[in-house]
């Protein structure tokens, strides 16, 4: 039968739509209103010190729009005007300096795209399959193009002769919000690829991502990407702040804990189909897609298994992997309508291959919280719906 959407005159084909100034800064069309960050209320005591999740299940490509990029605050997102912004560099430098925002805009700028993953991403999955949706299991991640200044440039402006031998020096970075989140970064990393960023995806950082200035620490855990960056101190020791001792450390089976586990290992997840993205079209052509990333380098390949890890086939990368940035992969199949156990496995250019949860548990035990980069399984049922499961190894 003819489709009335085609044969009958539709309102939008006859009357006019909105004028150009209806929304000076646009929002997504109302029909996309479910593509939003979501919170898991039982995770934390209060939304002021909490985290929410990027709707990665519903996105494509690799760039995360700022408006739905996950947030993590320790004392809430603050409103800090550019005019009120000050950045101090002190400690073992030749000249301690204070920069205004306008000063920062006069330094040579760089544009680079990186993922930011919270060390706790997938942390709720250590003990067993818990949350139904890639947004909840893997949504503490986003990927943006940053514009900013290399931290090295700023340190050089202050002068590092006073620091002497740089091999055992540290850079302590601290935020301006009430949590005063502070982390110690080894000088080698600080001089390598860290950015002091003020734009993301072409526009100013959002308040929730540290407007007007945040730190970008490529490939390293998100907690180190200090927001509302206000101070950079060159020291001869790590501070061993709360966020690098009592949190973001990894307790092993015997009760000892790893510290300074800064790098986020290679990881991937199928974003669709997944529990929030059921297959609604029945059997036939099906696009399986997902994201892969590595804090050690570029993604060199992604394997997908539809049988729970018995056999693996190479997925197609949307484009060549970039260092410490998200890579989109696709596997286009002809789905026969039978159940699948969907998994993905990332490879990076250091030769690392994403492990299973069993492999990780064998090394780390089951008391870890952070740095869970295990292979994820979605049990896709015949009706197209999926569930988060663990399968035998």
């Amino acid at each position: 039968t003819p489709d009335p959407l085609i044969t009958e005159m539709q309102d939008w084909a006859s009357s006019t739509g909105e004028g150009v100034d209806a929304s000076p800064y646009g929002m997504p069309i109302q029909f996309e209103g479910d593509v939003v960050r979501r919170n898991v209320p039982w995770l934390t005591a209060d939304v002021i010190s909490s985290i929410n999740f990027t709707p990665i299940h519903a996105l494509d490509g690799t760039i995360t729009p700022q408006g739905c990029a996950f947030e993590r605050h320790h004392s809430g997102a603050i409103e800090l005007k550019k005019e009120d912004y000050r950045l101090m560099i002190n400690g073992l430098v030749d000249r301690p300096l204070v920069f205004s925002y306008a000063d920062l805009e006069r330094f040579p700028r760089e544009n680079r795209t990186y993922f930011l993953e919270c060390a706790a991403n997938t942390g709720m999955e250590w003990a067993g399959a818990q949350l139904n949706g890639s947004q909840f299991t893997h949504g503490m991640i986003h990927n943006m193009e940053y514009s900013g200044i290399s931290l090295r440039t700023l340190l050089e402006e202050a002068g590092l002769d006073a620091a002497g031998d740089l091999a055992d020096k540290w850079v302590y970075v601290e935020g301006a919000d009430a949590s005063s989140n502070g982390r110690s970064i080894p000088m080698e990393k600080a001089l390598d690829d860290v950015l002091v960023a003020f734009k993301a995806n072409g526009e100013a950082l959002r308040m929730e991502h540290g407007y007007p200035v945040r730190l970008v620490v490529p490939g390293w855990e998100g907690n180190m990407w200090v927001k509302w960056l206000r101070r950079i101190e060159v020291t001869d020791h790590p501070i061993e702040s709360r966020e690098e001792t009592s949190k973001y450390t990894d307790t092993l089976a015997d009760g000892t804990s790893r510290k300074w586990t800064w790098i986020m290992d290679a990881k991937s997840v199928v974003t669709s189909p997944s529990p929030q993205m059921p297959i609604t079209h029945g059997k036939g052509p099906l696009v399986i897609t997902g994201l892969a990333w590595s804090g050690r380098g570029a993604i060199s390949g992604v394997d997908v298994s539809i049988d729970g890890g018995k056999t693996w086939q190479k997925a197609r990368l949307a484009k060549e992997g970039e260092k410490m940035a998200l890579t989109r992969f696709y596997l286009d199949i002809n789905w026969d309508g039978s159940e699948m156990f969907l998994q993905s496995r990332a490879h990076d250019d250091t030769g690392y291959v994403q492990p299973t949860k069993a492999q990780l548990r064998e090394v780390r035990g089951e008391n870890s919280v952070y740095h869970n980069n295990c292979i994820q399984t979605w049990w896709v049922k015949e009706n197209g719906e999926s569930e988060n499961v663990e399968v035998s190894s």
Partner: protein
Amino acid sequence: MSKFLPKLIASTALIASLATPSFAEKLGLGRVALPDEIAAWNHDIGPQGQGLPMGSGSVEDGEMIFSENCASCHGEFAEGVDNWPKLAGGDGTLADKDPLKTVGSYWPYLSTVYDYVRRSMPFGAAQTMSDDDVYAITAYILYSNYLVDDDFVLTNENFMDVEMPNADGFIIDDRPETELTIFTEANACYENCKETVEVTKRAAVLDVTPQEEGAEAEPEAAPVEQAAADAPVEAAPVEEAVAAPVMAAFDADLAAQGETVFKKCKACHQVGEGAKNKVGPILNGVVGAPVAHIEDFKYSKDLTTAHDEGVVWDEAHLAEFLAKPKGVYKKTKMSFAGLKKDDDINAVIEYLKSVSQ
């Protein structure tokens, strides 16, 4: 730093070139940071006590300060309330299933306690404590972990003498030896990797995924916007007219002072539009309302009894309660010790009136 050093050696060429003056032309941007400015911000304390200010605080003082500023979230004995961090206990549990990680059982450095409390606590009123108060709180947290006696006084002099039980419990990231050697291409299987695949755990069984119920799953803004677009423009002034009389009469200046005092309350109580019950109930409209008037909040028995007896939060009763909560309702769950100054109490009540929607 064992992992880091070898890499550094490999890149000494890079570091060396950085240290030479030729590597970067200075742009002359920014200005020199003044000593007072550095002193105002440079508060981090190192693991060997680097940066500790002169001062001292006793367990005895700490108990009182902790009760007033910390206990509403962390519990009177640092045992933690709801999902807020537990600061005491957990001794010897690190190798157990679900270890309890506290200052006593887990934190390797006492400096971290001082550093964190001084810079980041109390929640909602950070960086308001005196250095001596921070010493006292740190001493009390040690006491609550049975690490010092009740007559202990912590000072910058004896700070480094305190032994932290888990000081030796940490190793530097050993993934290069323990994981990077195993999780490799050489070990990756592609065919016949296992014989069978069985489901061993299911998220649906646990059922802890946040559910969006029916209509709520739809974008809430959409229907509202639609309605607004359809409604005549005159609708807006009507709403304002309705809103105006609801505003209770209050002294704006005093209410503004009260808002500052209210920071002490904010960790547990929300007010204003979109406020939700937290550790404590919403306080919108509390002034003049019956005691325990928020229907979906679980009050202590003392408060529900008062509610049943028809007791009302008039200003006098609120003032009495805010001065010493447990003096009025002995079993109240509110662990806040009370506001000492009458001015603060009056200001907070004025502020609560200002948000009484």
